[in-house]
């Protein structure tokens, strides 16, 4: 038996869309690659442009940007819980839990609106930093809210991790292991110096899996990324493994890592906000665009996200490349699905939380034939 990860979402083509545009437009466009990882794309894009033109955000801007990125991580992980709870938690607990998670997500969105400027596609992410800082009072209010969210999240976490409430599928997931090398660049933000981006290659699916592929597989709309010629797992488990020594190779361990990351992110947000000084600037001044090439690496909710930009003489984009974490995880998901019973084959890729504009268009994994 074989498994294929196929995506059907049309390619809107951000990389070609931004050619000839001002970097100011590029950040807005990049955020609209994904309505879930909006801030992650915005930050990776801003980092790439800053690298290309040779500027860096001031300390305050960097702190707030990390806060925005982590709020996005929490948003995304909570949304994933909405998707996965009905599968891994027994029915009698699941439906009320889903609504609790949505309500908590709405509170996180409120915080994102205050720091990022909007709950989705936060416009405060700009080249050179963050466009505005909250006031002293606003900051205190946000810290209080985040602490309350953390407290209420702990209750949700306890339910999700309570084996007495697990479904049969959760136990089945805890028996499937996947041991693939892991890659992460930073526990919370992203670091272009912890990865050699020139060692990342992306392949069209038929080149990645040669041989007689079914026609529907050949039409997949996603690329596959390899690091140093090999498949690597990226995302919550990779980050916790590399930076916290959390090791667990089952698919339920992967879910546990994601659930754990929400608490860690919320705690980190309160620490970062404590370091923001409301009086000083959040954005580089005297910015202009000039020729150069740059790389932005950010730890998106799903793992390493890479944006590469080339800016031309007139300060307009000449070339743009985006490598999203799901491209790395496709071979890992396929390996995991091959080792899993068919009864949970649909759930296996979803535990990896593949990018939703791709993943929810996913049709079949596991045995060939429509589900």
């Amino acid at each position, binding site marked *: 038996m074989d498994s294929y990860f196929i995506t059907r*979402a049309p390619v809107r083509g951000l990389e*070609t869309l931004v050619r000839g545009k001002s970097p100011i437009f590029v950040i807005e466009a990049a955020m609209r690659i994904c309505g879930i990882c909006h801030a992650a794309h915005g930050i990776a894009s801003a980092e790439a442009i800053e690298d290309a033109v040779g500027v860096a955000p001031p300390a305050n801007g960097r702190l707030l940007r990390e806060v925005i990125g982590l709020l996005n991580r929490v948003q995304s992980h909570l*949304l994933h819980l909405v998707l996965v709870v009905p599968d891994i938690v027994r029915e009698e607990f699941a439906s009320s839990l889903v*609504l609790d998670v949505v309500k908590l997500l709405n509170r996180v969105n409120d915080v994102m609106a205050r720091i990022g400027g909007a709950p*989705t*596609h936060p416009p405060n992410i700009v080249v050179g930093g963050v466009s505005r800082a909250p006031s002293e009072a606003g900051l205190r209010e946000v810290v209080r809210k985040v602490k309350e969210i953390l407290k209420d999240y702990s209750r949700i976490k306890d339910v999700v991790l309570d084996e007495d409430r697990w479904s049969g599928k959760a136990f089945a997931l805890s028996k499937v292991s996947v041991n693939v090398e892991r890659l992460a660049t930073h526990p919370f933000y992203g670091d272009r110096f912890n990865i050699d981006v020139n060692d990342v290659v992306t392949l069209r699916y038929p080149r990645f899996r040669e041989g007689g592929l079914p026609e529907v597989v050949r039409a*997949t*709309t996603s*690329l596959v990324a390899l690091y140093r010629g090999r498949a690597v797992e990226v995302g919550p488990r990779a980050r916790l493994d590399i930076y916290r020594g959390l090791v667990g190779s089952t698919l339920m361990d992967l879910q546990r890592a994601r659930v754990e990351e929400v608490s860690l992110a919320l705690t980190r947000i309160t620490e970062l906000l404590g370091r923001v000084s409301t009086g000083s600037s959040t954005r580089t001044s005297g910015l202009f665009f000039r020729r150069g090439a740059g790389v932005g690496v950010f730890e998106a909710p799903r793992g390493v996200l890479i944006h590469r930009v080339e800016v031309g003489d007139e300060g307009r984009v000449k070339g743009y490349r985006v490598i999203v974490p799901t491209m790395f995880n496709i071979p890992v998901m396929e390996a995991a699905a091959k080792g899993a019973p068919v009864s949970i084959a649909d759930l296996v890729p979803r535990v990896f939380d593949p990018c939703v504009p791709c993943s*929810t268009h996913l049709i079949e994994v596991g045995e060939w034939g429509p589900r």
Partner: protein
Amino acid sequence: MGSKVRVLVHDIGGCEGCPVSVIRALPELVGIADVHSRYLGNEDVSGGVTYDISVVTGAVCINEPDVVGRLKVIREVSKVLIAYGSCASVGGITRFCRGGQEPRPEHRTYQPVTAVVRVDYAVPGCPPAPTFIASLIKSIVKGGGYFLKLFSAVVKARKLSGFDLLDDVVLPGLCVGCGACILSCPTGALQMIDGKPDLVVEKCIRCGTCYVRCPRASQLLIRRYIQLGGVKG
């Protein structure tokens, strides 16, 4: 209406930000609607199931016959079709698409849902505020209201941007400087200069939010497309 309305939420080719904004409104919606979505694992767009209201998000990739076919099926099985969000209603960021990207360089032509099938209401926003969908569904069930007129006018407009706001409201001197457009802009592309809105052109993603939020422009839309039956100007 005694029983709950059956609502489908489906993304036809967007970033998923709009469907997520509807999912966020779930606590408000559970009392009035029976929501079907991939996110809830209960979606059926095979054509065998009907819906009272379908909320379609994203733009249509004309080069992908599956996508166009699916949209037509959704139209057929839906009593009311809402093009929800900027890509579906007026094109938004997909107005900039030009194709040529791996692995499917042939995906080059994108159109809003309003240009492909008959649409009842079109709601710009990137994404529309999550609080909005519940009141919209309530108005549709009730069968009336200012918003419904406005959003059926947007169906016919098909494209709206910050430039249209300047052309139709600011330059002709209709703007009162209320600032609603500036507050509504999702990218911060509008700023107040000397009491009047001004467009940062490289930030405008053609989402049309400012135009429907402007108290003057929204009335222009209704006059043009509903009262005057589509005569421009």
